[in-house]
């Protein structure tokens, strides 16, 4: 069923919009999906009509449409980031209790979240930098992390200071344990599972080059090729 790791060497790392398009293409037809605030929101722009993906927003809606502009803006209709959005045909509204029951009950197929760190075993840190002057705010991050059948992370693989965000063990406060199944980054896509960390594809770097870069940041995680 699986194909070997693909090294895309004729190009550099993906831009975030390219990464959003890649994720959009990987989302199965007919899925119910929640896109976390921030970068994952961009994925919606790349979903096609034919995919028939239905977007959930945790503030009480299934079938959320595109961002609202101009006269379409309605303060009573926003996404989880409080940005005005629109309806799609067949959408529905429900209260917060029902919305999170839907999520916690495992009814969403996919959720895509940003992350500060993801561990090799799928632990996620994305809600709090751990800095003492940072005001803690979790929102729905912990509910999303444990709720969807598949939790994908969308992030750059390396932080601005050069440190890897795919780590042996998260050092930042956790959002959820062993919850991430796939990590989409600008330089590689990883599956996290019982076999360990398996590379699906790389962008602008060889698999060996990727291993070297990760090791140079002090990581000990074994990064496997897909065969």
């Amino acid at each position, binding site marked *: 069923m699986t194909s070997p790791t693909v090294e895309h060497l004729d190009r550099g790392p993906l831009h975030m919009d390219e990464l959003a398009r890649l994720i959009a293409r990987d989302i199965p037809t007919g899925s119910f999906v929640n896109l976390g*605030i921030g970068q994952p929101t961009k994925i919606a722009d790349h979903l096609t009509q034919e995919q028939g993906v239905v977007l959930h*927003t*945790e*503030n*009480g*809606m299934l079938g959320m449409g595109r961002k609202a502009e101009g006269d379409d*803006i*309605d*303060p*009573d*209709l*926003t996404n*989880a*980031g*409080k*940005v*005005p959005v629109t309806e799609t045909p067949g959408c529905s*509204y*429900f*209260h*917060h*209790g029902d*919305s*999170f*029951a839907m*999520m*916690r009950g495992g009814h969403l197929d996919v959720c895509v979240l940003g992350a500060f760190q993801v561990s090799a075993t799928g*632990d996620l840190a994305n809600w*709090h930098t751990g800095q003492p*002057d940072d*005001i*803690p*705010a*979790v*929102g*729905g*991050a*912990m*509910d999303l992390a*444990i*709720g969807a059948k598949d939790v994908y992370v969308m992030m750059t693989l390396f932080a601005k200071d050069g440190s890897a965000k795919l780590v042996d063990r998260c050092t930042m*406060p*956790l*959002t*959820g*344990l062993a919850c991430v199944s796939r990590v989409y980054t600008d330089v590689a896509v990883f599956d996290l599972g019982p076999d360990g960390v398996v590379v699906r594809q790389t962008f602008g770097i060889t698999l060996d080059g990727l291993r070297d870069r990760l090791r140079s940041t002090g990581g000990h995680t074994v990064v496997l090729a897909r065969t």
Partner: protein
Amino acid sequence: MSRTRILDTSDEAVADIQDGATVLVGGFGLAGMPFDLLEALVRQGASDLTIVSNNAGNGEVGLAALLKARRVRKVICSFPRQSDSYVFDALYRAGQIELEVVPQGNLAERIRAAGAGIGAFYCPTGVGTPLAEGKETRTIEGRHYVLEHPISGDYSLISAHRADEMGNLVYRKTARNFGPIMASAATTTIVQVSDVVATGGIDPETVVTPSIYVDRIVRVEARHHIVGGAR
């Protein structure tokens, strides 16, 4: 609960809220925020309040106005930080307000549990994270859970779209959010609506909050605020 009363002003509606009360405040950002009731509460003067709400105020309106007037001792919420939550941010950094951060779904389910007479529940959200520290845990059929307790209020202040004269409510779009569960979880539920219709004017199949949960209703003029973004 006895019959719903329809009052003329927001001031009457919030007149008996006492110092030290726990008040559940509806809304997600500005959608569903009971602005008029909150402004009346600022005028009324009750202080030392504990506020349970998803956010901790935007700009200087609604909940932020109450915070700015220094009436709030503690906020229990999921996401205090907003692009325009500067009132809360300053109070928090100055150590002048307590904050309890609760995952959004746990906040919702704990409020629902209070309204539904559930003593406590095992919830998978937050297991192994700092927000579950000190809480009882349990493994059920191989999955890990944290024990969570109900959150009830002395009052709920919520905003709905329309009421009938009996107190049945419907909401508008995602402004529904915490309204229905908060209405069920407080001793006294106070609702501002844009519209009051005669009893029978709402299709019984479409009632979202049945009248039993509603104590007081005030009709207010609809108004629209600029919507602030998260962070």
